[in-house]
């Protein structure tokens, strides 16, 4: 398969798969709560329903409110396209790096927060301020993870990091473990999962992400929800790809290699989604002011990962 074809496949794969993963997490949680739960394909129906509905926009909304869903979805989608999922052999792979990834996610967040404040409701503002507080803590942690990864592998390109790890260039590194822990914590915060945010809540006063998109409806809401689903898939691909890249197709792989790559990617996603569902069931949401402790911990882990690299080199 040529890099162009692989890239196109990836572009559609991440969007097509994202609702299923979200639906799977919900199903796992429902089963653990003793409920039958909706089918894992329910999010597809929800998005389809929303797309057919009329988009109601508040009188006080400006063009920012209308543009934000498109910008947000596009930024998250693009970010998801540059993460290697089933193959590293993609046309955009050389252009991609982890710093760009952080920036793209930052753009999406910035626009969502702007849209939350744009309508002028107090919940939108509340959500935006909380989201920015989380971002100010999560982004440095994410960058720290990127630095330690690039120090280990000598590159910030996800595809090359994967190739390096696959080639056996790294053994069991303490730094890698610390970076993984930090990345998981960041992923929980970025995706608004318990204990940072509750994606299933109806309580206006405790919402973060939901509060910002409270005013959206119809296709706008579909895009905002879709962006959330793709973001979750993105982080699963990132964690699964960098820390457990086994099975991923290399440039020289044939059709069989690609099939194995795809299978491995799906397996990793569902494994992580199941783990997420279990984790969310056994833990309660934390107090808003504890976010700093949680994400500060992620930042410190990232920092430690970097420091350990130098220490181990010096020894």
């Amino acid at each position, binding site marked *: 398969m040529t890099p162009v074809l692989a890239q196109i496949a990836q572009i559609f794969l991440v969007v097509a798969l994202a609702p299923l993963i979200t639906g799977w997490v919900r199903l796992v*949680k429902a089963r*653990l*709560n*003793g*409920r039958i739960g909706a089918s894992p394909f329910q999010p597809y129906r929800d998005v389809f329903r929303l797309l057919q509905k009329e988009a109601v926009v508040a009188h006080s909304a400006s063009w920012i409110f209308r543009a934000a869903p498109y910008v947000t979805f596009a930024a998250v989608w693009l970010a998801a396209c540059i993460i290697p999922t089933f193959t590293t052999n993609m046309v955009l792979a050389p252009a991609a790096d982890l710093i760009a990834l952080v920036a793209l996610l930052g753009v999406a967040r910035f626009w969502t927060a702007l849209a939350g404040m744009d309508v002028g409701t*107090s*919940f939108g*503002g*509340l959500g935006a*301020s*909380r989201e920015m507080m989380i971002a100010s803590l999560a982004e440095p942690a994410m960058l720290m993870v990127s630095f330690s990864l690039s120090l280990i592998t000598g590159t910030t390109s996800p595809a090359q990091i994967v190739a390096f790890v696959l080639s056996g260039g790294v053994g069991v590194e303490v730094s890698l473990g610390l970076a993984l822990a930090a990345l998981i914590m960041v992923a929980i915060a970025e995706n608004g999962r*318990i*204990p940072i945010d*509750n994606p*299933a*809540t*109806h*309580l*206006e*006063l*405790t919402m973060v992400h939901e509060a910002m998109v409270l005013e959206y409806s119809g296709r706008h809401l579909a895009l905002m929800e879709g962006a959330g689903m793709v973001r979750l898939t993105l982080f699963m691909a990132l964690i699964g790809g960098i820390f457990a890249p086994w099975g991923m197709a290399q440039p020289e792989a044939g059709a069989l290699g690609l099939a194995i790559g795809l299978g491995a990617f799906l397996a990793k996603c569902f494994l992580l989604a199941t783990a997420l569902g279990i984790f*969310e*069931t*056994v*833990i*309660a*949401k*934390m*107090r*808003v*002011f*504890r976010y700093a402790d949680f994400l500060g911990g992620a930042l410190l882990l990232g920092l430690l990962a970097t420091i350990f690299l130098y220490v181990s080199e010096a020894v």
Partner: protein
Amino acid sequence: MMGNVSLLDFLSSGHPVEGHRPWPRFRLDIRAWRALVGQLATSEWSVISLWGEPEEIHVALRDDESGQIAIASHPCPERWYVSLGRARPGVIRLERAAFDLWGLAPMGLEDRRPWLDHGRWPSRKPLASQPQPAAERPLTYDFLAAEGEGLHQIPVGPVHAGVIEPGHFRFHCQGEAVVRLEQRLGYVHKGIDGLLTERSVEDAARVAARVSGDATVAYSLAFARAVEAALGCEVPPRAHWLRALMAEMERIANHVFDIGAVCNDAAFAIMLSHMGVLREKILRANDALFGHRLLMDRVVPGGCARDLSEEGAEALKHLLHGFTKDFERAFKLYDNTPSLSDRTQGTGIANGSLVHRFGAGGFVGRASGRGHDSRKAPGYQPYDMLDLSIPVYAEGDVNARLMVRFDEVRESLGLITQILSDMPQGAFRAPLPSLAGEGLAVVESFRGEVMVWVRMDESGRVARAHAHDPSWFQWPLLEAAIEGNIVADFPLCNKSFNCSYSGADL
């Protein structure tokens, strides 16, 4: 010393009203009423409720020291009376409501904003002898101001995102910290006092059962006891035991669901699932034993609507055995989840002295050191024959309110076991005589003390009645408890109070 006068001694200066049972009612003139207001400021008496009639104001009082209960009534043909609000802040909302309903003006009360009346009723002062025409437009409501740099308002409700009752909350915040919370209620006003005027006993009982649907047994029981007191009617012993059984079933069902709902608000949904299953077991048992899941209209004046069969009692015993085991497992889960304890401990502390000043009961009072329970004081059948202890905690936080609920469920399970083994045989319903009289009853609902007062006319109809919900004295404490907490913790605090909107909106 002035504070040591007992309630009955103090009120005996007034004119006793004939035929008020089981506790006396005294009519006070203006001098005696003023003296009462002064006495309230220094005494330990608590106000049970305050309500009106077109030209009279009533206040039910309890002397906590001696346990005496009495009603003080003050005729006010000029439609004003001296406010009790300064001495007892919990009464302020009751006085504002009485002004909205009967047009009786509380003199000396600074806060004269309407409470129940939002200017959307077909007439204003609907229960006064001469109601006023409807307001031209809905009234604007001036929320108390909070000024300072960086303060902002968050209006929440009356329509909420979840399926809950309507009420408006106005937050003044500085960032995440709540500087002031003010409630505006009255959205579910149903005109209960009006509906309880000139009604047959059966109709009135159905209305009383629906004042606050989740405490329907407690309201039915309070209404039935008040009517029976007014008529001097003796209920067969078995009826008392059946009523207590239903009341405890209701208490368990509500408490377990509250526990689950509080945890769910901390995004710990598994607890809600466990508790939902437990509640459902109780509701199905209610349905099988008494023919209604929530036991609505099962307690009637004169006794109960249904008897409990031998097989039913056996089935219930069997159910409770499994229930206790599941409940204790759920308690362990609550106790062993540190992320949950981190949310509930130290959150939304209701100050003990405020709880005493407002006379708040139920789990709100007991979690802050006020251990009052109507089942003990004044006490009523069959609780005087049962072994019952009242859990009291001092912390006053969300966790304490949950712990009170956990303990009360255990107590109720024990009570049901005792009731099932000791229940006397015999009739479960007695006919009601047609007499005139007045009656008062206080009953412990799962939320706290429910009071019902009735006046019967000669033909045995309800001439007037008033129902008082414990939430009247708990809502204001929620405003106080959230101060200094963060906005995101409000749902947790609110759920742990679980005040009734319907009961307090009348």
